[in-house]
């Protein structure tokens, strides 16, 4: 499953992603395999997604979120 499949309040661990498919800035902000991610909230039209990655609150589009594989905890 990917971040895009999470529902509000779900917590997960990032397992893998293809580096070339996601912005470097996101990696620098803590999107790294092994780090935690929580779906805080979806925007009213279900996109973008408001996340807490490794302690940083940020929003990304669903398109990017669906590139990041996670394991739910």
């Amino acid at each position, binding site marked *: 499953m990917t971040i895009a499949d999470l529902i509000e309040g779900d917590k997960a661990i990032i397992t893998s992603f293809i*580096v*070339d*498919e996601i*912005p*470097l*800035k*996101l*990696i*620098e*902000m*803590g999107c*790294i*395999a092994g*780090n935690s991610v929580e779906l*805080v*909230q979806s*925007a*009213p*039209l*279900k*996109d*973008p997604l*408001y996340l807490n990655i*490794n*302690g*940083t*609150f*940020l*929003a*990304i*589009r669903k*398109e*990017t979120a669906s590139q990041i594989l996670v394991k739910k905890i």
Partner: protein
Amino acid sequence: MSKLLNIALIGNPNTGKTSLFNTLTGLNQKVGNYPGITVDKKTGKCKLSDTISAEIIDLPGTYSLNASSEDENIAVKVLSEKGNVNYPDIVVVIADVENLKRNLLLYTQVKDLGLPTVLAINMQDIMASKGISIDIDALENELNTKIALISTKKNIGIANLKEILVAYKSIPLVPCDVCDTSILIDKSLNKKQQQHKDTVKRYQFIKIALENNYKVEVHRAKGFRAKLDKVLTHRVFGYLIFFTILFNIFQALFIWSEYPMELIDSLFAFLSDWAKGNLPAGGFTRLLSEGIIPGIGGIVIFIPQIAFLFLFLSILEETGYMSRVVFLMDKIMRKFGLSGKSVVPLISGTACAIPAIMAARNIENWKERLITILVTPFTTCAARLPVYAIIISLVIPKGNSFLGMNNHALVLMSLYVLGFAAAILSAYILNKTLKIKSKSYFVIEMPNYKMPLFKNVFYNVLDKTKAFVYGAGKIILAVSILLWVLASYGPGKEFNQAESIVKIEYAHLDENTLESKIASYKLEHSYIGTFGKFIEPSIKPLGYDWKIGIALLTSFAAREVFVGTLATIYSVGSEDEATLMEKMKKEVHLDTMKPVFDFPTGISLLLFYAFAMQCMSTVAIVKKETNGWKWPLIQMFGMTIFAYLVALVSYQVLH
């Protein structure tokens, strides 16, 4: 003799970097430019001790030194080029205490450059309420540096930071040594993959460094943010609140700036009169009173509106609310080829397109950014207002028509709506026609909510207003002077012998009428009059005469020049003291004796000004931001041809 140290300030966005800069430098700061690019360079002086002062440079906020934008590139250049004029003696990395993990990534990168690097951990004041504890001594050992725990909000720890800076020679220069050089020479990886591996390594280092020295009791005080988010990004209330705020901002903008604008207007009118009456008569006095003073007045009059708009915008940014708006609007804006981040440029555009277009820089996706840059000038900027104001009061009858709303206000509001509609629709068309492939990247930090700091808001408003006055001001002033020269001199004998020609032709007139006849004859045959007549055939179908033509031409430099030009044309053309409006009302077409500014011409002018690209400063900034002439030229011709066609159709239908 006091010593001057160069200190560079760097940090993630939303860490209070600018607050620290403002605290250290106060009013001793200035905004300049790095050579060749439009990134603002903020520097300021600060006294560290009795004998040592520092020149502090505030580098653009960045999450890392892997530069991906022009702003970030500057930071890398300043910190890594030993020959750079701004190369610092010390670097201060400022970090947010709540998110040390992420902030230390930048710290490790800076530290590896081999400069004395001090870590300033900000927001010390929230540590207790968030349950955060740090073992500073142990962390200093892990990170091989000096740490200052500060609060820019409560003004805590600044003296300690200064002491550390004075004693910078004792800071070890050893790098964190996390950069694994084998990554950087691995040919099987591309640059981004190398940067990914490098980032992973650094995060591992940070994790170990923080392991025992940084503790957070998790379940403390998380509720406020979540509760506010639920309301502010709610699918109904979220939009409702946003549009209510927007509406109130616009209303306040008008009401609050009305009085200072009137004051400025009469002040410059007074100055101009005074110069005319008290300085020795001659060419220079006329240039001063008819060219330079009204020219400067034309710039100063926009200061209240621009300052108020940036006051509201920086409060929205400072509180953290703007990120929520971006989050809320992204999906909708994307349907039109824009980004949620286009909201800020589009709102700023209602003051001035120049800072608005610069605000488009943080849009990651090139296509979305380009479309934002191209459509922003459609929004009704402050420079259009004087044009709208005078035309509306000339051609729209007073009174209430719609829901008790004043006719004039209604038309003005429709023009605002029209501007936004034109921006959104042209974005939609551009999105469908531009064949640019770029990844749909979009990352925005959702910072904590906080009370805006007065000093940050104040300096931000000051910077933005100054940038407008110096940037756009130079062009407006130059055009007013040029205009005056072109209207005061002319080719051929018609201009030079105006007096005798008119005297022969109108021998029966009394002295006063004769004077004004001579003046208007002179204007007609001046350089600018000749040019206005030359283009008259092409603007006649729009309902304009050659005098409007001149104003149209000069306002290609800046829209508000329109009013100034008409003022110049009509005051140059007659000596009586009636206001510009009354003069415009009296203007008639010489062939038909019908008023020039009638309803069809007025509407046609309003529409032309709503759509045409008449701002040299905007063209210049678009050229800089898009690295070439292609897009500014497409934008200028596209908008202006569209404006011409709309004005043409409206005049021909209404006429």
